[in-house]
């Protein structure tokens, strides 16, 4: 048979593999690249970004976005990832989700949950596969950390002229600084959480932690986030209600934060007065006429609750092999609470 010149001598090689990029909005890196739990956090420059993001997205507000640091969690893969159902996204989300869960227990700052992320699998074959949807906005224009300086400019276009004064775009949430030391602490916390999962997968601590994680969801209104946080506060430190001979919630919070070496001046009174008032507003809707600074309540609660979650986690994991897992009620006894069962 004569050789058909239109048909290649060998079939084209299928090229698998590539790199998954998960946008780490709100992350500030202390180094060019930081490895953590199987992912590499790295800055991506404009050129690389335009290779993995749609043009209609990168072309918006070019002048605004030029100087913004874009950090991604990067994971190479070897298999085929040509569809949105590829398992590579699941693997990347699992690693990233574990980091998010632990990082929130390590320090304040914004981490976007994996359900809201838009990952891109940039294949070695030159094709990008991107997961998008109503729950996954790109968030490139969202501002985290310091206010974004929006430069003044004049733009003329056909018969329209737009003048923009110098102004600041206020942040949608705080930034999170990732350095080598924090990356190692995050990995340690991931290990501790794995240990607790093996030790007591249904422990009450997990309910508190799930609510704590929900309280970081940027897409929930503040009142919802605070409701979750107050649930965690009472789960970890015991209820606002005080039993006979009970030191009370304020004293328990002070005890835990002193152990962590934090400044506790006026803390007990703050918990018993301001936090109680804010909690009653949320739980019972009372005192609508009284103005409450919920932004600072949220920041303070996050700090208090984070400390309590970490201490109780260490305490629960510190039991001997022969012991039954320690309960949150028993933890509360160690910080001065006398807690009766709920009627």
């Amino acid at each position, binding site marked *: 048979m004569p050789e058909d010149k239109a048909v290649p001598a060998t079939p084209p090689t299928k090229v698998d593999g590539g790199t998954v990029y998960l946008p780490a909005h709100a992350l500030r890196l202390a180094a060019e690249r930081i490895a953590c739990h199987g992912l590499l956090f790295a800055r991506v420059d404009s050129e690389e970004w335009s290779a993995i993001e749609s043009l209609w997205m990168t072309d918006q507000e070019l002048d605004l976005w030029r100087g913004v640091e874009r950090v991604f969690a990067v994971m190479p893969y070897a298999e085929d990832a040509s569809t949105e159902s590829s398992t590579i996204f699941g693997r990347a989300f699992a690693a990233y989700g574990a980091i998010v869960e632990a990082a929130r227990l390590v320090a304040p700052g914004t981490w976007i949950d994996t359900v809201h992320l838009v990952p891109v699998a940039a294949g070695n074959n030159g094709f990008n596969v991107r997961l998008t949807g109503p729950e996954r906005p790109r968030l490139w224009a969202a501002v985290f950390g310091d*206010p974004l300086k929006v430069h*003044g400019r004049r733009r003329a276009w056909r*018969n329209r002229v737009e003048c923009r004064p*110098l102004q600041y775009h*206020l942040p*949608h949430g705080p930034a999170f600084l990732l350095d080598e030391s924090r990356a190692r602490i995050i990995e340690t916390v991931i290990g501790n959480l794995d240990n607790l999962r093996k030790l007591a997968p249904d422990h*009450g601590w997990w309910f508190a932690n799930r609510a704590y994680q929900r309280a970081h969801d940027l897409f929930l209104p503040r009142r919802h986030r605070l409701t979750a946080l107050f649930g965690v506060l009472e789960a970890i430190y015991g209820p606002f209600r005080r039993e006979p001979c009970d030191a009370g919630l304020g004293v328990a919070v002070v005890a835990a934060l002193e152990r962590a070496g934090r400044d506790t001046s006026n803390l007990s009174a703050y918990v018993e007065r301001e936090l109680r008032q804010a909690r009653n507003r949320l739980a019972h809707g009372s005192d609508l006429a009284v103005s409450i600074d919920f932004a600072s309540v949220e920041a303070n609660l996050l700090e208090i609750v984070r400390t309590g979650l970490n201490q109780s986690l260490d305490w629960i994991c510190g039991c001997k092999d022969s012991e039954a897992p320690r309960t949150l009620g028993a933890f509360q006894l160690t910080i001065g609470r006398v807690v009766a069962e*709920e009627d």
Partner: protein
Amino acid sequence: MRPEFLCHLPFVRLETGAVAPLANDARLESLSFEDWLALEDPAMEYYDRRYREVAPVFVRGLLPDGTTAGRLDEEQEKAAEEIIEQAHTAVILTAPATPIPPPSLSAGYVVWRGLPCDPPDADNCFCPPYLDPVPVVDDDGFQLGRITVWLQQAGTGGAHEQWIVERRFGPAQREWLLARHAREGIVLSADKVQAFVRQFGRLSQARWGPRRAAAGRCAEALTTLSSTPELNPEGVVLLVAALENLVNARADRPLGDTFARRCAAWFAENAGERMRDVGRFRRLYGTRSEILHGTDPATALRDMASAIDATPHAEILNWLRLHAWLAVDYLIGWYARHADDDAGATQFQAALAQAANETDEEWKNQRARIVEGRTYARG
């Protein structure tokens, strides 16, 4: 000069593309690309095709007159908040089973039109060199980004004029105006548009918004309960808190029993339901307490399911959604007839507390007055 406020309703589309007039000279419409572009960065002209495909829907209405073009005063901000809350609440009442994100997560615009053109300065600019930031967090607690620009372009009559536009961006910024997935969501048929118009009219008459704060919590609880197909424990806490704030804000003891008696007096349609509902709402309060105090909610929700004769979580969720919806519907009717009642619904609470203490016969009469103006009855 009365500025106009345009509030995007994400994931809502109109079947016909028609404009629906709303109360207070507001309107619901798929904002045309040309009208949107006139508010936007001139470079957005490139997004013509994307924008037309999504056909974003806005509620637009005039704000009160203010002192300074380019910056809303307190009264104008409150009026803008009322438009947002009335528009969002009208959508969730029209389509209660559809998760509709709060408009604050997306984009909104405030526009001052018809200003005389300022002469350009030495740099050929006609805007002030610097604007102070406005640190505003809206009532929902979402931080908004704001960019204000001065535009000189053809006005409605064709003559060249100056506009000032404040672009308000939630975290999703323009994505839900331009992304193809923004075409997903609810398409309002002509009937649904009419339902929206009706609800918006009732909400306007009730002056729904920050001045109806206690009632607004029920709408917020309904949003939360509709946002996912799963029952979220915080949703239970939020609904009970919203209801308790309306039936027992003075914290009359015992809390759980008072809550249950008054909720039953509000929602039950007859004496038999009233007796049955006391037990159900008492269990709901107990469930809320167990969740709030950090107990694993699974057991509490199982007890709750048994109390309302529901088996799967979806049935509990529907029961909770129904009562959040009814509370909003009844309160719109209440405020429409009691415009002088306050943000905490003090008059409503007094009327309900009294009705809850009455015998069945007298309760029936008093309750009929409390729920007058509602559009739906349970069962």
